[in-house]
């Protein structure tokens, strides 16, 4: 293997790829060659670094200099200054939002965003080249598989996973070891291991980042699971909307086959295992386990009633063990470091770490992994850097369309499965969306319901018809046509749907409405009784007004598409409320902050 004096790590996650990291890599390679450094410096495209907000991100080792928002034209400077002359390019170094400090001389761990994190599932993301199996092997890759195949019985493997306390990271939080044990206990000529990579929650990208950054970890874990439960075949069901993840998984599987880590007689034992990759086709309900398996079978992805549970009768009618991506990503570490190590992290009933996708009105948008039991406040303020533009925090949404919105007063809740449910939300797969004072909570509830109505498979009536009725009521409320009794009707429908829907999608669909009703009932009431949107978000309920800050520059009148603004030059202007379309163009244009929303 060649030795290099410096490594340039360029993030190849979806966020950074979208903002042009592929061009950066080309440019780096070109410039490094031009300067005759190609024998000394190596450019590596890694998985997600997590701090998507600062993307595209480049880290130069051995110093660990963290460059953010790098543009192609900055590459030349980094090469000629940093790589050639050893001088860091100060003006490109990442500035911490919270402390306004640059980390030119500090290491990554000192950046607020990384300080509170603990990377288990994400340990290789942003560290290795996901398309190179040798780099995974160098990070103890496939050692856990070797250990179970050569030194452990199947029962010992299951016992280790049980003792670790690992719970399903897809959202439900079912003890993983128990699932393995149930499937192990089923007797059949063929069993399957499956991986749920149909990450559908809007605003969640944890699983995608793991697949993109460390695909071998999933393949290794599935092989371990296959050995434990007695399956020779595995299926990964991954969203078609994740092209980079699909590509890297495919490459990883081919490399593993080439190295004899998938296929026949792995590590010289009689254990044989291989995986199939199947693509989803854009149906949220396929994240539900029975629906997912129907989809792999090539059918409509509609859920069926349980029991029988997949552990008894799953894919193609055979016992099947289905785990989520992040759950699998923990397995090799548990095998190598032991259940005792894993269960020493986290809270009493939720062990280990959890990955969250931080998004919305937050400074450090990105991917974070923290020990279970970290408070929401630490995640949002210390890691996430709080709300941008000095806006006031209003709520944090966890658990996607199945979860809920939690207010400021609950920010000191330590995050684990049970606490979040007690607080009125749920862990979900790990999306965490922050909302500020400008977000209307009624509209957010409406947004989730709209999503559910769109994604409901239509098989059972409570979900198909009930959520539609709820959406109609919410649409009415945000349009300023809410009636007395609407809130009660919403609550009644929610209760009925929760109790009677067929699958998890329907049973949890009313949660965003219930949680916003619980914590932000005053906003609903303001919409219905006072025809007012406290966040000034709902168009039908707001008016634009010009205040006496107006200098009469006429900019607003010129930009108004409806000619609703009148006034003499250098005189205060007025908006004709009947003509106003509420497009907000005037407010954007005004340089004096004279236009306000009421």
């Amino acid at each position, binding site marked *: 293997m060649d030795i290099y004096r410096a490594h340039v790590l360029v993030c190849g996650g979806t*966020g950074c790829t979208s*903002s042009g990291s592929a061009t950066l890599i080309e440019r780096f390679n070109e410039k490094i060659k031009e300067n005759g450094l190609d024998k000394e410096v190596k450019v590596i495209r890694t998985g997600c670094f997590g701090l998507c907000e600062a993307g595209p991100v480049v880290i130069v080792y051995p110093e660990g200099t963290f460059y953010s928002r790098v543009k192609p034209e900055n590459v030349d400077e980094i090469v000629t200054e940093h790589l050639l002359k050893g001088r860091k390019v100060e003006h490109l170094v990442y500035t911490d939002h919270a402390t306004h400090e640059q980390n030119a001389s500090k290491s990554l761990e000192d950046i607020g965003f990384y300080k509170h994190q603990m990377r288990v599932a994400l340990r290789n993301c942003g560290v290795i080249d996901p398309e190179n199996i040798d780099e995974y092997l160098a990070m103890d890759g496939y050692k856990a598989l070797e250990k179970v195949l050569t030194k452990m019985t199947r029962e010992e493997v299951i016992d280790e996973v049980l003792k670790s306390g690992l719970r399903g990271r897809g959202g439900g939080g079912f003890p993983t070891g128990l699932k393995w044990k149930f499937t192990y206990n089923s007797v059949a000529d063929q069993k399957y291991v499956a991986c749920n990579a149909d990450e559908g929650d*809007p605003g969640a*990208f944890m699983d995608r980042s793991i697949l993109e950054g460390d695909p071998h970890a999933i393949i290794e874990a599935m092989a371990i699971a296959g050995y434990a439960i007695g399956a020779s075949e595995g299926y990964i069901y991954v969203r078609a909307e994740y092209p980079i993840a699909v590509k890297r998984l495919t490459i990883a599987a081919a490399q593993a086959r080439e190295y004899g880590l998938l296929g026949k007689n792995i590590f010289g034992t009689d254990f044989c295992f291989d995986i199939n990759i199947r693509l989803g*086709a854009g149906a949220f309900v396929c994240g539900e386990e029975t629906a997912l398996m129907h989809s792999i079978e090539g059918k409509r992805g509609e859920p069926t009633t349980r029991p029988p549970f997949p552990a008894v009768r799953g894919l193609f009618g055979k016992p099947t063990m289905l785990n989520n991506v992040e759950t699998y990503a923990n397995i090799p570490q548990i095998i190598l470091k032991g259940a005792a190590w894993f269960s020493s992290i986290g809270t009493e009933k939720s062990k280990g770490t959890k990955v969250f996708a931080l998004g919305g009105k937050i400074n450090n948008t990105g991917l974070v992994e923290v020990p279970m039991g970290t408070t929401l406040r630490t995640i949002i303020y210390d890691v996430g850097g709080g709300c941008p533009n000095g806006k006031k925090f209003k709520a944090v949404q966890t658990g996607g369309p199945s979860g809920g919105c939690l207010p400021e007063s609950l920010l000191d809740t330590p995050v684990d499965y049970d606490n979040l449910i007690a607080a009125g939300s749920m862990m979900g797969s790990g*999306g965490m969306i922050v909302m500020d004072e400008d977000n209307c909570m009624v509209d957010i509830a409406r*947004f989730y319901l709209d999503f559910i109505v769109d994604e409901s498979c239509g098989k059972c009536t409570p979900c198909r018809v009930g959520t539609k009725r709820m959406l109609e009521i919410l649409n009415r409320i945000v349009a300023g046509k809410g009636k007395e009794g609407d809130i009660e009707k919403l609550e009644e429908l929610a209760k009925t749907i929760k109790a009677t829907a067929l699958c998890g999608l329907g049973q949890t669909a009313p949660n965003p409405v219930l949680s916003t009703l619980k914590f932000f009932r005053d906003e609903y009431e303001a919409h219905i009784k006072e025809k007012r949107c406290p966040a000034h978000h709902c168009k039908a309920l707001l008016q634009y007004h010009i205040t006496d800050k107006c200098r009469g520059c006429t900019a607003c009148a010129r930009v108004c598409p409806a000619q609703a603004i009148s006034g003499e030059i250098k005189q205060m202007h007025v908006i004709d409320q009947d003509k106003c379309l509420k497009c907000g163009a005037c407010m954007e244009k005004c340089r004096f902050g004279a236009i306000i929303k009421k």
Partner: protein
Amino acid sequence: MDQSKEKFAQLQELIDSLKNQPGALMPVLQGAQGIFGCVSEDVQKFIAEGLGVTLSEVYGVATFYAQFSLHPKGKYLISVCLGTACYVKGSQTILDKLSEVLEIPVGGTTPDGKFTLEATRCLGACGLAPVMMINGEVYGRLTPDVIPGIIEKYRAKED
């Protein structure tokens, strides 16, 4: 006509290669969507015959998943992300603006066949929210006022 013959030959090849694996219908439909740009009735019939399943089964699957469309899409597919992170940062206003500029509803295609406007689920570029994608190219940190300029760029592109 020759072009369509070629496409059907390609589809036949795909069917032959996947026919014997369990659950082949989904990958075949995904292939067909890529080859033809949509799965029209002809294509569905062809698949039903090729895989030995009923047309109703093919239709049932094709209409269940958002990825399959029964009608051809525009030359430029505009997908506006309506994931939560984008939504709270105002992607609805981006979608409304596009609808206004293109004079088509969400899900519609312009009469000249140039643009299709779609709302899509989370694209995962939450750090760039609000985001839209035009034929794979991502536009991030959007505001409504930059939309007309972007569309104009594509309108000006000659075939």
